[in-house]
């Protein structure tokens, strides 16, 4: 590792420094021998320090733009990583802005909350650029452990603690299983470098490769699937998404999930290209299971957080179509990266949309503490702007034009069609129809069911307004003018060590 490499680590360094600064700034004025100062709420401006740190980290991405190289022996600096780092920073910034009024009334440790979110943003940056199994494992655990803490942040709340314990137990098990797969790969190749693994596996015989590759892929998929909440590694997701503090749910279901997809794509494409037929088949199967199960269960939900949790599982299924469609490489018509660019577009659109939807949920919950779908009755009268925003987000989640979700779905389904995976695309389309049913049910409740007589208008704090406005605008912008995102995604499919 040389000092020159540090410039590629700027975003991570800035995020960690900002987190450390918040930890320390939060402590100033608190005295250990005086309980009153200990329980005093955090300084409100700390959130702006956090947002400033994120902005600085985004600027820190610039030196790495357009580069494709190995950094510090363990990390890949490539456009793919930059895309996901930008995604993570944007996602965490939106979540912090949305969390501003919500957290302050619910926990005394608000400063630490922002700091931990920054730390998890740094963790995602490391996850998506890991080019070595050791780095990958450490970064994923870094993200997981921070997430466990965030999920259990309301330690006096029954649901939050339960959410965190379930997340923790599933996560610890999944990472142990994934680790076993990594150890097999290390044993077979003598290296933990992703490119090195691909090279060593390429020299193996076919039968030998299957005996090793089959188990290794399944074991690795347990870990990645856990992060991306793919069926059948999704059991934690509904309870954790429902029980965790709502801003944390927004984070887990978007930025954290994107990290899972990023690492899945990177490892499978750059370390296991020789096993492609095997994992394409497996991912296609998982994709079908994920979207079908997610959608069918989402229909029955009455709690909006839980409904969005299952919807987010289903969305992971759609995204996975794009990864499976990578087989198009062999086809003559398509470019080599079709499918992956669809995944990137979809993830960006989904992140903006889902954070926006959760921001609306936060706004309603912050005022009333209610998270049932029936509590959204007559929202159009109590908070017209919120209702319109949620309407846009739900349209986008259902994939109806002119919203971001439509563009994302167009690209992943298109990739599947071009890869001649017609059944996959058909099942996806059927699922979209099913999902529209429960998304539009919320719209019906908001617009056409009269509000409870004692329902008050929803007052929304300014940072939260900004989040809703920004995400809503982005959702529409991507839906109407998707060119810039498509171009960016096309450029970002360049992976280090891609053959």
């Amino acid at each position: 590792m040389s000092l020159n490499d540090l410039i590629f680590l700027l975003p991570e360094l800035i995020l960690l420094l900002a987190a450390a600064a918040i930890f320390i700034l939060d402590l100033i004025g608190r005295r250990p021998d005086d309980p009153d100062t200990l329980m005093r709420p955090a300084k409100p401006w700390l959130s702006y320090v956090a947002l400033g740190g994120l902005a600085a980290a985004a600027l820190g991405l610039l030196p790495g733009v357009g580069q494709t190289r190995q950094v510090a022996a363990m990390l890949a600096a490539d456009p793919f990583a930059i895309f996901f780092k930008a995604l993570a920073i944007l996602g965490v910034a939106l979540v912090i802005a949305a969390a501003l009024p919500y957290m302050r009334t619910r926990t005394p440790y608000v400063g630490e909350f922002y700091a931990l979110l920054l730390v998890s943003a740094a963790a995602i940056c490391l996850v998506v650029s890991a080019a070595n199994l050791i780095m990958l494992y450490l970064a994923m655990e870094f993200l997981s452990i921070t997430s466990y803490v965030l999920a259990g942040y309301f330690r006096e709340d029954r649901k939050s603690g339960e959410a965190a314990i379930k997340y923790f137990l599933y996560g610890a098990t999944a990472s142990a299983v994934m680790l076993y797969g990594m150890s097999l790969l290390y044993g077979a190749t003598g290296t933990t470098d992703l490119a090195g693994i691909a090279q060593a596996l390429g020299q193996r015989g076919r039968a030998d490769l299957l005996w090793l590759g089959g188990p290794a892929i399944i074991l690795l998929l347990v870990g990645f699937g856990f992060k991306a909440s793919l069926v059948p590694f999704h059991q934690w997701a509904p309870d954790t998404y429902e029980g965790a503090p709502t801003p944390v749910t927004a984070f887990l279901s978007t930025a954290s999930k994107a990290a899972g997809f990023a690492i899945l794509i990177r490892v499978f494409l750059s370390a296991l290209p020789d096993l492609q037929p095997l994992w394409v088949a497996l991912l296609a199967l998982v994709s079908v299971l994920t979207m079908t199960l997610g959608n069918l269960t989402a229909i029955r939900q009455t709690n909006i957080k839980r409904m969005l949790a299952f919807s987010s599982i289903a969305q992971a299924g759609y995204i996975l179509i794009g990864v499976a469609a990578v087989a198009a490489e062999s086809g003559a018509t398509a470019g080599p990266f079709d499918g992956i660019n669809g995944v990137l577009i979809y993830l960006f659109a989904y992140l903006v949309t889902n954070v926006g939807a959760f921001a609306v949920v936060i706004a309603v919950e912050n005022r009333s503490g209610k998270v049932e779908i029936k509590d959204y009755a007559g929202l159009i009268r109590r908070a017209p702007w919120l209702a319109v925003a949620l309407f846009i987000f739900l349209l986008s989640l259902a994939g109806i034009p002119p919203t971001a979700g439509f563009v994302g779905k167009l690209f992943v389904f298109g990739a599947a069609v071009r890869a001649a995976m017609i059944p996959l695309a058909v099942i996806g389309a059927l699922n979209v129809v099913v999902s529209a049913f429960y998304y539009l049910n919320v719209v019906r409740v908001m617009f056409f069911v009269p509000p409870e007589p004692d329902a008050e208008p929803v007052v929304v704090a300014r940072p939260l307004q900004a989040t809703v406005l920004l995400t809503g605008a982005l959702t529409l912008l991507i839906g109407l003018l998707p060119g810039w995102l498509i171009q960016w995604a096309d450029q970002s499919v360049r992976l280090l060590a891609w053959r």
Partner: protein
Amino acid sequence: MVPLTWYLVLAAALFAIGMFGVLARKNAVAVLMGVELMLNAVNINLLAFWRYTALGELVGHAFAVFVITVAAAEAAVGVALFIAVYRQRDTVNVEELDAMKG
């Protein structure tokens, strides 16, 4: 000298036992203990592979050190969660954690 496969079969057995503990036990702390068994199985794998296939570089060593470090951090957070939940519920039985259904 002991053949490599002995170590690998041993690790597989330990991993399977740990997996059984994770899936069958009711108590959260017992589940955590199962996870620790699985992680130890992985460490045996890593060091056996280091010893028999890649002696030149200490990749397996370094990997195992990181696994142990992460295991410690994970256990600390996990135990904190168990204690917090026990304060609210008087139980850390996984099956009794059912505030949410659906």
